[in-house]
């Protein structure tokens, strides 16, 4: 049991900056990447705001952690499921999100997008497949 690879999904439903949850949950994902589990992230509800382009914290003085999402690919965290309905409800589309990519070792290290747009029902099915859901 302990040797088997588990499917971990980090479920992000909160916007960045207003509270610390998004920042600290990203830290969990980065540490968790060292454990060789089957890792994915879900972004739904206000969680989709974590991935938007153009975040600039200069005027508030808080830490801008949006560049860290770009490093996820290097940590083999390359399944970032973004719920389409949540984007649409917030007047957003894929073009408004940071272009996050990873190099696919099974395909001659070709660069591929990490963000996968999924419908609400597809995301439900994905959650059902998981062994562990980490909700922050």
């Amino acid at each position: 049991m302990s040797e088997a690879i588990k499917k971990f999904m980090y479920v992000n439903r909160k916007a960045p900056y207003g509270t610390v949850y998004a920042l600290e949950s990203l830290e969990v994902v980065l540490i968790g990447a060292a454990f060789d589990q089957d890792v994915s992230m879900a972004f739904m509800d206000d969680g989709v705001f974590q991935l938007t382009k153009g975040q600039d914290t200069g005027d508030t003085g808080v830490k801008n952690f949006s560049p860290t999402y770009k490093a996820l690919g290097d940590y083999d965290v390359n399944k970032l499921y973004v719920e389409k309905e949540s984007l649409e409800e917030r007047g957003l589309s894929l073009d408004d999100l940071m272009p996050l990519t990873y190099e696919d070792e099974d395909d001659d290290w070709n660069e591929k997008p990490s963000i996968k747009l999924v419908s609400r029902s597809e995301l439900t099915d994905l959650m059902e497949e998981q062994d562990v859901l980490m909700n922050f």
Partner: protein
Amino acid sequence: MATLHTVNKSPFEKNSLERCLSTAKDGSTILFIEDGVYSAVKGTKVSSSIEAALGKHNVYALKPDVTTRGLSDNMIDGIELVDYDGFVDLAAECSKVQSWL
């Protein structure tokens, strides 16, 4: 085995209940805890969606949170009350736990 979904937010403040209901597969178990127990009260704007959910899911409310808030006499029929022991049993019986925070 089905998933245990816990909801700990008032449905009048956050969308946790709504997201739980739109995500939970038929046959899964839903447990209201903390301010989530306000979802289980009769005659509110969400009671019809809870009554509909009772046909598809096993719906429970955490009794200590219900009594703490003085809601015992106003619960929607069909919602079963469990104490912390019962919460542990539900978590053990289900395959995993999804916390709708």
